[in-house]
Structure formats: C-alpha cells, structure tokens
C-alpha cells in the first residue's frame, strides 16, 4: 500500500463518514430530546435516495402516496384533540403541505430541471415523513419508558421497510451526481461530489450549532433534553420539542439520502445499514455528545473504507465490531462514576 492508495481510502472514508455523521447527529438529537432511539432514521435516508433517483427519470415518484398517506394518518391520529386554530395548523402541516408538495412535484418532475431541483423535491417529499411518524407512532407514548419507545421504533422500522418495498420495489437505483467535476491535487483526484458532501455536511452542522446556541427554540430543545419537568414548568411543550427534533431528523436524514445516492446503489432497505453505522458513532458519543458522535462517524467511515480494501468480505463485521470495545469501555467507566456518586 502506498501513499496514494492511503489518501484515496482516507478520502472515501471521510466522505462516507460525513453522511454517517449526519445520521449520528440525528440519533443523538432525537434521543436527547425524546428518549427515542430512532431506528427508522435509515428509512428516511434510503427513501430520499430512491425518490431522488426516480425523479431523475422524469417521473413523479410513488413516495408521494406515502407522503400523503402518512400525513393523512397523522392528521386522523391527532385531530380529535384539537380545536379551532390548532386544528387549522395541524391540517396545514399534515394535509395541505403534502398536497402542495405533490402538485409541485407532478408539475416539475417531467421538466428535467436538473439535480438541484430534484434534490430539493426529494427532501421536501421525504423530510415531512419524520414528524408525521412522530405524531402517529411516538406522541401517544411520550411518557413511556425508553424500552417501550425502542419497541415502537422497531415496529416503525419494520412497517416502513415493508412500505418501502411496496413503494420503491426490490430493485436498487443510483441517483445522479451533483456535478461531474473532478479536481486534481498533486496526483490525487477529488470528485466534485465528495466536496459537495463534505461542504453540505459542514454547513448542516454549523446551522445546527447556531440554532441550538443562539435561538430560544434551540435552547428550549436543549432544556427538554436536560430536564423534562423543568422544561414543562417554564411552559415548553415536550411534545412540541419532539416534533421539532423529528423535523430536523427528517430534514437531515433526507439530505444524507440525497448526498449518498450518487455514491452507491441504494435499495429500499439499504438505509438500515447506514443508520446502524450512524448508530455506532452515536453510541461512541454515549448518545449524548454531538462532537464525539461526529468525529466517531468520520472514524467509522475511515475504518470502513480501509477494511473494504484489506478484507472487503468482512467490511461490515469490522465496522460493527468497533462497538464492542466502546461498550466495554463505557460500561467500565459507568461503574466508576456510580461509585463516586
């Protein structure tokens, strides 16, 4: 192995790791605010990637049915407790928004307006699924234990997996690259797509940081994560915080799907593995620290690319084995902190 191969593998690892970082960030965010381990995060990734790929063929994707259906279901689930303007807002979010997105997609899809429009449409179609899922599956259980919420997550993941097969079919597809530009740096080549991925990930991380540090709503989300009763006592609705966390998770999940679509062939259930790798990174950050999770995600990406070079058959095994020493270390450390208390 020489330096150039090393650099190629490193570049590959960082690009994949950037996508895992987005996933890991969502898992940490959603867990901190709602105590939900969001297994279906991977579905948002694969659904967005597949929607993006279908849009490239000039056809309105079948995921529009999913968007409208899940929106309507979320409406029915929540509408009977709402009155007046609350009901109006709910209808706007769960009925009118999907209708508008559907109409715009049907109008724009055959026009071949380029990857940027397709990417935005794919995100607009996929991202709202997350808050609808929250209303449908999690909000009624908001005060339940972590284990019950985890079971609900497994259920939601399995249900979405089946729906994904129905909507997208068993064939995989690959989306178009944002750009075909290639840059040369010495004897290294860097694809424009890699730069897009790293840049958009960095922009999302910066945006999230600014949101959490400098807005009252961001502070309210952090407060919900720190002390749920304390948050309620100052008037922050924890269900509202959960909805915002899920909306962010949907947006970032859809973005990671669109980013990863040109790199690899995605199947309807392919998001699960991506989600798991994000989960490994999130666990390394103890589902609490976002900076550690982001760095760990980059590490997971690099380990994955090196192991696919040396022992490609064991690629996934090596990545998931990473979690064992981390868990061991965590459990040992946890015991000592308990002793101190």
């Amino acid at each position, binding site marked *: 192995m020489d330096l150039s191969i090393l650099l190629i593998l490193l570049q590959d690892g960082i690009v994949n790791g950037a996508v895992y970082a987005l996933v890991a960030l969502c898992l940490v965010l959603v867990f901190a605010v709602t105590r939900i381990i969001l297994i279906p995060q991977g579905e948002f990734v694969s659904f967005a990637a597949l929607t993006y790929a279908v849009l490239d063929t000039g056809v309105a994707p079948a995921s529009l049915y999913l968007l409208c259906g899940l929106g309507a279901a979320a409406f029915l689930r929540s509408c009977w407790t709402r009155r007046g303007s609350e009901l109006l807002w709910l209808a706007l979010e769960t009925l009118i928004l999907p209708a508008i997105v559907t109409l715009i997609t049907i109008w724009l899809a055959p026009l071949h307006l380029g990857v940027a429009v397709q990417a935005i449409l794919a995100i607009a179609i996929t991202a709202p699924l997350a808050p609808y899922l929250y209303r449908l599956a999690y909000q009624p259980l908001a005060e339940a234990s972590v284990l019950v919420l985890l079971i609900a997550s497994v259920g939601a993941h399995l249900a979405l997996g089946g729906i994904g097969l129905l909507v997208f079919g068993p064939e995989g597809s690959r989306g178009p690259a944002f750009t075909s530009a290639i840059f040369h740096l010495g004897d290294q080549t860097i694809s424009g797509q890699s730069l897009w991925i790293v840049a958009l990930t960095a922009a999302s991380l910066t945006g999230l940081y600014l949101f959490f540090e400098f807005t009252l709503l961001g502070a309210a989300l952090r407060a919900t994560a720190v002390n749920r009763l304390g948050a*309620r006592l*100052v008037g922050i609705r924890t269900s509202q915080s959960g909805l915002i966390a899920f909306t962010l998770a949907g947006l970032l999940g859809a973005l990671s799907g669109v980013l990863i679509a040109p790199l690899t062939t995605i199947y309807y259930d392919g998001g699960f593995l991506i989600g798991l790798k994000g989960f490994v990174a999130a666990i390394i950050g103890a589902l609490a620290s976002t900076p550690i999770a982001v760095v760990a995600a980059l590490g997971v990406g690099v380990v994955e690319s090196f192991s696919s070079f040396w022992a490609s058959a064991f690629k996934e095994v090596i990545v998931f084995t990473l979690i064992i020493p981390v868990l061991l270390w965590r459990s040992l450390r946890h015991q000592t902190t308990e002793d101190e208390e």
Partner: protein
Amino acid sequence: MSLLEIDNLSIGYSGIEAVRSVSLRVEAGEIATVIGPNGAGKTTLLGAIMGILPSTGSIRLNGESLTGTDIEHRVERGMSLVAESRELFTTMTVAENLRLGGFRLRAQGQAALQRGMDENYALFPRLAERRTQLAGTLSGGERQMLAMARALMARPRLLMLDEPSLGLAPLIVRDIFRTVAALRASGVAILLVEQNARAALAISDHAVVLEMGRITLAGKSADLAANPRIVEMYLGAGR
C-alpha cells in the same frame, strides 16, 4: 373572586388519598402559606395545583377552571411553580436558565426578555455575578435563587414556592424570605409551602395548616402565630 380558588381537592396515588378535600383561597397580591409536618401532603398539593399530579375537585385561576389542563397550559395562564427539587437546567448557564424562564413571553420580543432579566439580576445580585456559570455548579442557595428568578421571568400572577428554605444555611434562608416578602410589592400573589413555620407565618397574610392530608386550621397568619396549639407544635415554645 379570589385569584386562586381551590375546592374539595383530593389527590390520591396508588390507592392512598394523600390529600383529602382541601379548599383554599389565595387573593391577588397576598402571600398565603401552607404549613404542616413532613409527609402531610404539602408538596403533593402544589404538584396537583400545577397539574403535575392528577386530582379531583376544582381549581380555578381568576375564575377560569383549570380542571384537566396540563402543566404548560397553567404556565400560559400565569402560574409558576418553584419545585422542591428546583428542576434547573443544570448543564446550561444561569443566563440561559433565565432566558428559558421567559419562554411564556417569547412573543413579546428581545427587549421585554432583557428587561425581565435585568429586573431579576437586580433582585438577586448573586445571579448577575454568576450569569455565565453553569447552573449545576451553583451552591444550594444560588440554585434556589435561580429557580425563583427563572419562575419570575414568566411574570406569573401566582408564584408557588415549595420549601424554599430546605437545606439552606440560616443566613441565606433569611435572604430568601426577605426577597419573598419584597415580591408582594410587585403584585404577584404567592402560595408558600414551608416547614419553617415561624418564617412563613411572619411574612404571610393567610395560612392554613395541613396535617395528614387535611386542613386542620386556617386563618390570618398573625392569629395562627398566636394560637397556642400552633406555637406548641410548629413554633416551639423555647425557640
């Protein structure tokens, strides 16, 4: 019409009635106090008034029934509770805790929020010195001050304080009670739950005695402070 009207409030959990048909009134701009021994149901009572615990009976704020509403709704309507456990955002700074205390008034803009923060820093100068410090690193007395300031940030009509003196040094307790007494001038009504009956009766207008989940005595604080039974049980003849 009183600001807070509670009638026949009963609170039970796991089959035991912790509070039985309690009725009490808090008038606008006055300090009312609930005294009683440990385990009498004082904290449970405040929890039910705030909507943390389910209860039967009627709770009305300014004539509006709050039966069946959640905590957030009661905060919106102008209630604030400083819980016995303080419930601070420990990994956030003092300033952030205060900012979030003003969450109810978020529509009023940055200037109103800043005005509220300045007022509370004036009321608790110690907090102003510690504004960039994490709430979890504060001393017990400072935490109590922060919890009170955070509750006041919402500009409540009714402020409920659960054992504000618990676990604090006597000098700090004196400070806290002095601040509570001073708050009356700002127009906020206060419902104070205390084991420190002497201090509570000294600053309050009305008082009730809660024993075994029932109200056994009620009246003007000055009268209760002179009542021989209260003196013997809660004030201690020699102290």
